[in-house]
């Protein structure tokens, strides 16, 4: 009996701690969303947890005023992230598929290279990457932001883990006997089977590219081509929105609300994907 009471007290204590952590995660975001619907005067009056009615006005301020075209940046980021996602998933899956089903000399080297690339701090070599971009005359081009996705070692590793459990050799043999080409087997048989894993990887690839600040920040100098994180950085440093706090909050909300909406819809895939990449049992 007393043990049961002890467990219950423990439970209450744990739930309080969990509620506190939930508060830390949610409160800043809630304040952000609410403030994007309030006027500057209202925001200066204090914190509120109830949305106000100033959203349309803030939207207009954001749309017309300011040195940064946030909506254009939004479009730029969406374009870059979409292409990056397609390349990451397609070529990651293709490479992992080759490692999984074929026997060839480069197989072990490729796998070793993948593991090596995951461990090294690649971001540090950005200066060498910048020189490459300059020598190809590709500053202010999106190509150096998109094409490196083909060499995404993380995606290859992820798909390697994933395919181990879902490649069916008999199916591939049957297709071969029916005269299907190797690329055809990959497209018509492997890709549909691996679709759930590809979907999970697609989410990670998209979010990673969407949030990336470091690379575009060094390569893109033309403000018309700036990505969303770059636009936010300009807003932080500029004083355009200092007087219009509501518009400032709305600008921030635009960058995260789509992500939150997608997350609520797809959280199952995302959570299982994190663990899938980390463990191999």
């Amino acid at each position, binding site marked *: 009996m007393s043990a049961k009471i002890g467990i219950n007290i423990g439970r209450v204590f744990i739930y309080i701690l969990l509620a506190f952590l939930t508060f830390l995660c949610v409160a800043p975001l809630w304040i952000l969303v609410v403030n994007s619907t309030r006027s500057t005067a209202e925001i200066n009056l204090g914190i509120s947890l109830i949305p106000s009615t100033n959203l349309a006005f803030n939207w207009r301020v954001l749309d017309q005023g300011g040195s940064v075209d946030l909506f254009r940046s939004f479009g730029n980021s969406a374009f870059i992230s979409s292409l990056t996602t397609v390349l990451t998933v397609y070529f990651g899956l293709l490479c992992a598929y080759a490692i999984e089903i074929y026997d060839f000399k480069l197989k072990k080297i490729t796998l070793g290279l993948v593991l090596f690339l995951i461990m090294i*701090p690649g971001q540090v070599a950005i200066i060498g990457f910048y020189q490459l971009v300059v020598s190809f005359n590709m500053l202010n081009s999106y190509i150096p932001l998109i*094409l490196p996705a083909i060499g995404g070692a993380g995606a290859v590793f992820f798909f390697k883990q994933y395919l181990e459990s879902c490649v069916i050799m008999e199916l591939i043999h049957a297709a071969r006997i029916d005269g299907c080409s190797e690329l055809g087997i990959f497209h018509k048989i492997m890709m549909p089977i691996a679709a759930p894993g590809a979907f999970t990887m697609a989410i990670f690839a998209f979010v990673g590219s969407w949030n990336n600040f470091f690379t575009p920040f060094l390569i893109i100098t033309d403000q018309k081509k700036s990505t969303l994180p770059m636009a936010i950085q300009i807003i932080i440093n500029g004083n355009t929105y200092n007087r219009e706090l509501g518009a400032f909050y709305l600008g921030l909300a635009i960058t995260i609300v789509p992500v939150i909406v997608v997350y609520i819809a797809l959280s199952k895939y995302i959570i299982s994907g994190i663990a899938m990449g980390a463990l191999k049992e």
Partner: protein
Amino acid sequence: MKERIRTGTKADRWGYVFVAPFLIAVAIFTLYPIINMVIMSFTNATNRDFTQSLRFLGFSNYTTVFDNDRFMSSIGNTWKLWIMNFIPQLGIALLLSVWFTSLRLRLKFIGIFRTIFYLPNLLMPATVAALYNMLIGNSGPLNRMLYSLGISQWLVKMNLVPENYLLITPGMDGAPDGIAVILTDIPSFMTGMVAYMQWWLWFGTTIIIVMAGMTSISVSLYESAYVDGASGGTIFFKITLPLLRPVMLYILVTSLVGGMQIMDIPYMFNVNGRPGGRLGEFDTMNVVMVHQYFHGTRNPYGETRNLGLAAAAGMMIFGVILIATIVLLLLMRIGKDKEPKKEKTRKGGVRA
């Protein structure tokens, strides 16, 4: 490993074709830049000319970076920020994972809590930095909360905050608002905030990974420990922790490699436009490399852009991470009694 059916050499040739795009992309976009950085770090490369009149300088770039106080203090800052966010991260992850997987506690809504805790990780670091900038401002929510809870008044009464960090009636538009602490001017507070933001971004991920590691431990081990009358603490230290070693190693290495490269948040979490903080209190290695050497001429401090120096700084960051990782792996090996299992790694990406 499952048995492979021999596919015959003809089909196997397609392996080369399928891995070729990946290998070519890696060679161009990852390996070449690394080699390039090594070469550039020994030259006087600037932005305008990479090839013409490129002079070999020996180790002079390295000694310049070594003599740069800003870079040297950024090494300490980077470590401080990483340790400050990693220890609470791992501690909370272990604690929550034990509770979440406990058969005795049988907690509810675990899935929902995990989902909420992971959410910050998906948000744009630029936005996170801007948002927290607003939250800790003079008339921001944090200051208002401190005031309405009476903490600001108490700080003044006890003389805990120097006068130049205080603002009386900061409310704008005539709103009377008592006392505000100018938090953004207090270096230790700002450093703490950067560490906190990193923790906020990453603790959910760590929980999910540690928990997945714990659930993969066989239940029968726990059951036999219960039968033998082992206490909760004994089970944790004798069964859970040792079996969690591969997962812990994985978290440590990825977190360390990511944490040493931390750049986005410290670069943007500033009020007066100086990346790394007003006094450079949260200058990290990457921030100095990009801000001082790479952006040289563009930054308002008049330093010249020098890619040779930036490359040398990059090499030194590389070195710091390499040494730290090797030391870490050696330490983990020393503490290990049995044969080392195959190392586990996860999807790439920078984490801290």
